[in-house]
Structures are given as structure tokens and as C-alpha cells.
């Protein structure tokens, strides 16, 4: 009986991170709209000023652009970074368990100057914030 209970609790602990099984197709999308459709499945994100993209306004090299996402929203389950002018707009997606809190920092490639967006799912709602990044030399990011 004890063993059954332990197995059950372990499965529950992993469930929130596995529930977003539809992530991979979003990475194949070639437009921002297709990437958002794949991520949101028809839901509408709300623009939020409780969500911030922290990065340099001017990126000398598009090959490595450091980005920090800050937010005071609680219960954040996922963070997705979308660069609409990249050949594959969805650059990165993070599935957060309840023990991981923002801010998070990562580095992406940007093909050219563009308005990047961060999409966050928190407490069953979707939020989005955007920010313009000027790129001097675009990152080599393929076709």
C-alpha cells in the first residue's frame, strides 16, 4: 500500500511539466501566428505590464542576445520566447514546475531587428508582453 502511494505522488509531481505535450509542433512553425496557434490552441493571450522582457535595446550581434524575463505573476507554468522575424519564430519554451520562479535568463539568436514577445501561462491564463530589439549584425539562423 505504501509503495502504491509513493508511486502515485511521484506521478503527480511530474504531471504539470508533462501536460504540455504539444510543444514540438510549435517549434516547426514558420510564422508567429502559426507558433502562437500551436502554443495557445485557440486561447487568447492578454497583454500584461506585470511581465517584462529585460534586454539591451541594441544587440551588436544577433548570434547571442541575452534575455531576462521578469514577472510578479504567480503560478507561472510556462515561458515562451517568440522572435517573429526568425525563420522559426519559437526560439525557446520553458515548462516550470512550482518550485521554479522567475526571473529566468537565457540567450537567443535574432535574424534582424524585430519586436520579440514573451508568452506566459499562469494560473490557467495566458499573458503576453513585447519589446523591440535592434540588431546590428543578424545571427546566422538558417532557413
Amino acid at each position: 500500500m505504501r509503495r502504491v502511494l509513493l508511486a502515485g505522488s511521484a506521478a503527480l509531481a511530474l504531471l504539470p511539466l508533462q501536460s504540455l505535450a504539444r510543444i514540438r509542433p510549435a517549434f516547426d512553425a514558420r510564422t508567429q501566428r502559426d507558433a502562437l496557434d500551436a502554443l495557445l490552441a485557440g486561447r487568447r493571450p492578454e497583454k500584461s505590464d506585470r511581465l517584462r522582457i529585460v534586454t539591451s535595446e541594441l544587440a551588436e550581434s544577433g548570434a547571442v542576445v541575452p534575455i531576462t524575463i521578469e514577472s510578479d505573476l504567480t503560478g507561472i507554468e510556462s515561458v515562451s520566447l517568440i522572435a517573429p522575424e526568425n525563420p522559426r519564430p519559437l526560439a525557446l519554451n520553458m515548462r516550470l514546475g512550482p518550485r521554479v520562479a522567475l526571473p529566468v535568463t537565457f540567450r537567443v539568436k535574432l535574424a534582424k531587428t524585430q519586436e520579440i514577445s514573451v508568452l506566459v501561462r499562469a494560473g490557467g491564463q495566458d499573458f503576453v508582453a513585447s519589446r523591440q530589439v535592434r540588431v546590428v549584425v543578424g545571427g546566422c539562423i538558417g532557413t
Partner: protein
Amino acid sequence: MNGASIKLRAEAGPKGAAAVRLLVNHPMLPERVDAKTGKTLPAHHVDEIVVAVNGETVLVIDCGPGAAANPFFSFTIEGVRRGDAIAVRWTDNQRQSDQLQASVS
């Protein structure tokens, strides 16, 4: 690869949260056209990075070719004490993988 491709530092802070810095050595190549031959070269990039503390998955990072070469991340994990085991495993789209386990310091 015995964890050689992964650099991982996790430091426990005063409030029971650990600051984690993670670097994966990987070229993160997109699908691209070879300038000399005109041939299309296949993408080679990390697909997924899983972070676990004491065996419990706490974070999954999905990457596309738009993640920069040698992906770097920093984030905070709550409810972590010095000596806890933190493990990182990555897999890429050519089915290569590597993993590393470290102790929170």
C-alpha cells in the same frame, strides 16, 4: 559524454532557494544551405533540457534552432538545501544526449 558538455552551478541562498547557472556546450545549428555546395545541411540542436532536484523534475526547457549556441540559463529553484542533488540531462534532435549530477553548494 559523462557530463563533459554541461557546466552547472547551484548555490543555496538564505531563503532556501538555490540560484542555478547552467551552460550546455552545443553548436545549436539550424537547417541551412552550404554556401559552397548548395546542399541543405540538417539542423543539429538541443531539443530538451530536463532539470531535477533529488529526482523530482522541476524544469523542462524546450529549444529550437533559435536558441543561441552553447545555451546558457539562469533561474532559481525554491525549497533547496545545501547538499541536495541537482541533475541535468539534455537530448538533441540527432538523439545525442548528456547528463550531469551535482550537489547544491
